[in-house]
């Protein structure tokens, strides 16, 4: 029989749907093989929707970003000076890449949260890893936003 739950540390016979903690016993659709829309916790429902909304945004922005920097330009040309002089010499591409960063920080970090919740059940490791994840996310937010905002624009100084 196909397993219809993500195991949550309870025996692998599968925990009852909706049982246990907010994110445990998350059900997997037998068709799409993704998490079905959670019930109960409002926070989990909001995250479920936002994963899909940010996913659509990333489908466009991330694939465009990858295509531009590998098919139009090539890593062989992308020195720091290239970023300053050509890639980020205008507000549009800085804004584009910053929006991409915001979407990826939400989508990637909430995705990793799901992975941790699925595999880590140790009562101390689980919150420790989640905190490490959120702190890493905050650090990347600061790093990424700092470089978008502070990198000099040619001719502006």
């Amino acid at each position, binding site marked *: 029989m*196909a*397993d219809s739950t*993500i*195991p949550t540390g309870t*025996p*692998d*016979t599968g925990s009852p749907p909706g049982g246990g903690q907010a994110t445990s016993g998350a059900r*997997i*659709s*037998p*068709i*799409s*093989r*993704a998490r*079905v*829309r959670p019930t109960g916790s409002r926070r989990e429902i909001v995250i479920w929707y936002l994963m*899909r909304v940010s*996913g*659509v945004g*990333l*489908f466009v922005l*991330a*694939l465009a970003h*990858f*295509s531009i920097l*590998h*098919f139009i330009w*090539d*890593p*062989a040309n*992308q*020195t*720091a*000076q290239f*970023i*300053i002089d050509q890639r980020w010499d205008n507000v549009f591409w800085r804004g584009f890449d910053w929006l991409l*960063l915001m979407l*990826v920080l939400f989508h*990637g*970090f909430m*995705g*990793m949260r799901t*992975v941790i919740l*699925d*595999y880590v059940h140790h009562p101390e490791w689980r919150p420790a890893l989640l905190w490490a994840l959120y702190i*890493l996310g905050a650090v*990347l937010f600061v*790093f*990424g936003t*700092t*470089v978008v905002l*502070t*990198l000099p624009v040619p001719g502006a100084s």
Partner: protein
Amino acid sequence: MSRLPTLLRYRGREGMAAWAFHRLSGIGIFAFIVLHVIDIYLVGGNPGVYNDVLQFYASLPGRILEVVLGAALLYHALNGLRIIIIDFWPAMTVYHRVLWWGSWVIFISLGVPGALIILRPVWLPLLQQLGLA
């Protein structure tokens, strides 16, 4: 019941591969995003180190990793779209097998040319040596 890691446990037909690939590609992309935000920070923070990192990206091992990254990104994007279509348009459930195999057709038809472009510095000199380009 088995104690196999979740990724290896049988989840049935196409679905198991879809789910496992989605998770693995997601974790891989996450790892690259962490590296990439740090490397782009170096454009302002330490341009010399940034240029060294980009030189690695432009090398052969770097380009092979970029092809892997691009494949992970394209798979995750297409499979994610498939999930969203089925989630929000349940009538499409009837066609879930078409959606699955269709996403692989798109994956190959976009991915192979993309890989060839990224790996151009590898095969172009070979063709030139052979007098074919």
